[in-house]
């Protein structure tokens, strides 16, 4: 029976592909994309003010609110700005670490560092945010360390969100960059040095362009994870971000929350398209 099925499939590559893809396609396309589509359609619905029931007529009311009320522009702008800041910060921190891991560390050092970088990924996200919340508080570690010098920690607020988000997503940036750097043959670097380039020049003109797609790959996650986060901003700041606004509206105005959700979806799809062009998908 198995043989006959195999024989049947043999000359029919598209059937092979079809049977391989049927499961994942059903799951992802119908299940996931379908859910997204349903959610986005509901962005065109409205809500009855008293009962909170969803009214399924077609209306652009939600989008009008998003565009006309200035607070949403502020919220979206603020979130995108922080996401970009976090991405840049993480790239800057990740590059030296990844470079050391890939090109300088001994074999054992490399193994230790990889495990060392991966480990925080496994500690609970919530606990990491809680840790920062306590560190940033009035009586917390940061103030305790800085006060003797007459300085004060940032406390809660947008700076705190930037710090915490940079911290949380750093491993997602280090790993692709590390992989990307590993792929650069040492012979290229040696050749550059043999031709007389100083280390910094080699880095700037040989390594950086080659590792750039990996950086973009890492940035996909730092950007998107910051864009949609609502727990960390709630715990270390008072400010509203896209994630917190969506969360706040899910309870009594799901259509409006759906309209809000469209924003990060559109942003991420655009980001992914650009990332693909830059070759990041080979590095995810």
């Amino acid at each position, binding site marked *: 029976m198995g043989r006959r099925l195999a024989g049947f499939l043999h000359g029919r*590559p*598209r059937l092979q*592909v*079809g049977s391989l*893809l049927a499961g994942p*396609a059903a799951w992802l*396309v*119908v299940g996931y*994309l*379908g*859910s997204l*589509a*349903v959610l986005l*359609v*509901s962005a065109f619905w409205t*809500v009855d*003010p*008293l*009962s*909170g*029931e*969803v009214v*399924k007529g077609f209306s652009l009311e939600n989008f009008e*609110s998003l565009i006309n*009320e200035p*607070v*949403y522009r*502020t*919220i979206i702008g603020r979130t995108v700005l922080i996401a970009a800041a976090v991405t840049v910060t993480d790239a800057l921190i990740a590059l030296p670490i990844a470079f050391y891991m890939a090109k300088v560390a001994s074999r054992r050092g490399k193994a230790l560092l990889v495990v060392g970088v991966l480990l925080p990924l496994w500690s609970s996200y919530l606990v990491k945010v809680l840790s920062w919340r*306590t560190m940033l*508080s*009035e*009586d*917390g570690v940061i103030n305790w360390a800085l006060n003797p010098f007459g300085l004060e920690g940032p*406390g*809660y607020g947008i700076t705190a969100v930037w710090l915490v988000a940079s911290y949380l997503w750093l491993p997602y940036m280090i790993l692709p960059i590390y992989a990307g750097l590993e792929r650069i043959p040492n012979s290229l670097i040696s050749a550059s040095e043999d031709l007389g380039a100083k280390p910094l020049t080699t880095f700037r003109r040989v390594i950086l362009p080659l590792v750039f797609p990996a950086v973009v790959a890492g940035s996909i996650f730092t950007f998107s994870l910051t864009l949609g986060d609502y727990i960390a901003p709630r715990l270390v700041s*008072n*400010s*509203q971000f896209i994630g917190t*606004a969506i969360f*706040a*509206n*899910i*309870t*009594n*105005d799901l259509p409006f929350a759906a309209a809000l959700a469209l924003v990060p979806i559109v942003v991420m799809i655009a980001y992914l398209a650009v990332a693909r062009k830059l070759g990041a998908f080979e590095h995810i």
Partner: protein
Amino acid sequence: MRGKDAHSARTAWLVVAGLVAFMLILAGCGGSDDDGGDGGEELQKIGKGEGQVDLISWAGYVEPEWAKPFEQKTGCTVNNKVAGTSDEMVQLMRTGEYDGVSASGNASARLVDGGDVAPVNVDLVPNYETVFDDLKDQPYNTFDGVHYGIPHGRGANLLMWNSDSVEPAPDSWDVMLDPKVASKYKGKISAYDDPIYIADAAVYLMTHQPDLGIENPYELNQEQFDAAVQLLEEQQPNVGEYWSEAAKQISAFANGDSEVGTTWQYQYFALQEEGEPVAASPASQGFLPKEGATGWSDTWMLSNVAKHPNCMYEWMDWIVSPKVNAEVAEFFGEAPAQSLSCDETADKNFCAKYHADNPAFWKRVYYWQTPLADCGNGEEDCKDYNDWVRAWTTIKG
């Protein structure tokens, strides 16, 4: 071969697209299963317990001290989900996964209108008879003459401050809402993170800007509403934290991140127990600052699709029985709903302190209620809850 590949692959994608479209149609037609309308029928008789009851409640309302004895007596295991805001409660009830909720006035009307709760047959709740009269047949628990719940207790929102850092002891909401005074505590003010807080600003304006003519802080016309919103926008730079989880506020006061704020007795007691230097308007002032305060009068309501209605009725009777309601009231720090509880409280002066039997006192406390466009004076130009929600986002910035 390539052409045939592309052709059949395209067909495959078309099929898939069709399935997605089918899902969309399903979504458009489905989902209207809670059009209970006037909400089901009343239970006529309490049957055998179903073994468990799933509740949604405010922090401190369902504690092991009285939940465990209930479980032993009725065999109904209590599963409780603590919610921080009325919005959360409404949303959770709408999932249909819970049997009952301790709803405040700004949730009850919405639940009834949404068909999420069922009428309650008060004859099946023997302890209801001796509930304080001014809690019965109220607009927040009785709709069109039909009872929708059993009163739990009532209280006022408290002004709490850190007695070490806030001097002099405040007796007015000035310390939070008057920019001149509030700026002294910039970044240390703790406000409730819910659109209903706009009513607190309205209460403040009733005293400080009487020419606005506000009579009911939940019925605000455009002018009154704008004034309240503006007051809160001026407050925003001074606010350190908008809290919605009681425990989060406790930790903020304990850490010194908040020094003055609006709170419930639950947090106040918890902080006192930890030895934190917190103070609030004393009982002699009725726990109220000069201007009065917003408050709540909570009702246990029964879900329209409750899986364990018998256990829920048992719970409602239990929670309003004299001894239990006394425990509940003393634990949380609110006035009990049950008149007979006043003999059961550990502190013999508890009811007097909390004005449990003093209807006149509660005239200065404006229970949470759902803002509607219908102003109640014949006009329809009051701001409704949607407006409040939208404004709240703008206030927080």
